[in-house]
């Protein structure tokens, strides 16, 4: 164990707790709906949808639920219409926070965020106050026990990854968002199921 940890890996450690809450499904359904709404219901023509479907399958979401969420997005089934928004905030101690939301009521969401932040010693920040401290990157976590370093490194670089970092028990593979799909596929082709794989906002100071 190293002496310190950043949020992306903390989240991974806490992942088991999230799974229990069943919130993952709710989130994935919203993602599927909005991805289908913005780019159409055909995953072959819609890379974002393809990526979310892969996430949903990895979370063991039944195929019927996936289909229904997509049909809600395309309007083939009635559903709530969600809006995407990103908020920026400061945490206690001045840490920068970025919050991605999908909501049917922005006013309610902002109210809830403000309340939560104030309760825990943080506050909402203005647009671009902290976003510049982050870069959007494909971020894939592979447990070291599941991978041969040389093989993994070769495969991900071949697929267009920028970097592979050592995080104690895990390898962290970073790529441009555009290369993320190909890199994730390359990991899977090695027979490895990544512990986590997601286009993420990665802080530049870490």
């Amino acid at each position: 164990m190293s002496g310190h940890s950043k949020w992306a890996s903390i989240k991974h450690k806490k992942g088991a707790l999230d799974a229990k809450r069943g919130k993952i499904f709710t989130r994935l359904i919203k993602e599927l709906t909005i991805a289908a709404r913005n780019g159409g219901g055909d995953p072959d023509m819609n890379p974002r949808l393809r990526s979310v479907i892969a996430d949903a399958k990895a979370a063991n979401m039944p195929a019927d639920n996936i289909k229904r969420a997509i049909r809600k997005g395309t309007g083939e089934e009635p559903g709530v219409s969600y809006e995407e928004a990103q908020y920026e905030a400061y945490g206690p101690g001045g840490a920068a926070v970025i919050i991605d939301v999908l909501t049917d009521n922005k006013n309610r969401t902002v109210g809830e965020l403000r309340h939560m932040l104030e309760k825990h010693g943080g506050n909402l920040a203005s647009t671009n106050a902290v976003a510049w401290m982050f870069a959007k990157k494909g971020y894939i976590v592979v447990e070291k026990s599941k991978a041969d370093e040389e093989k993994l490194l070769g495969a991900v670089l071949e697929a267009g990854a920028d970097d592979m970092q050592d995080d104690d028990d895990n390898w962290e593979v970073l790529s441009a968002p555009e290369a993320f799909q190909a890199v994730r596929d390359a990991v899977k082709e090695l027979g490895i199921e990544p512990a986590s794989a997601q286009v993420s906002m990665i802080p530049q100071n870490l």
Partner: protein
Amino acid sequence: MLEGKVAQQMLKLMEALDDLDDVQHVWSNFDVSEQEIEASLA
């Protein structure tokens, strides 16, 4: 690196934000020790 009370407060905040129904993802640039994470899980 955040320590002690501020670190615990930050971890609680991240979890609370993450728990909100409308929130899909929360990202942050803070850094804490393994001990702080263990303490937050306890």
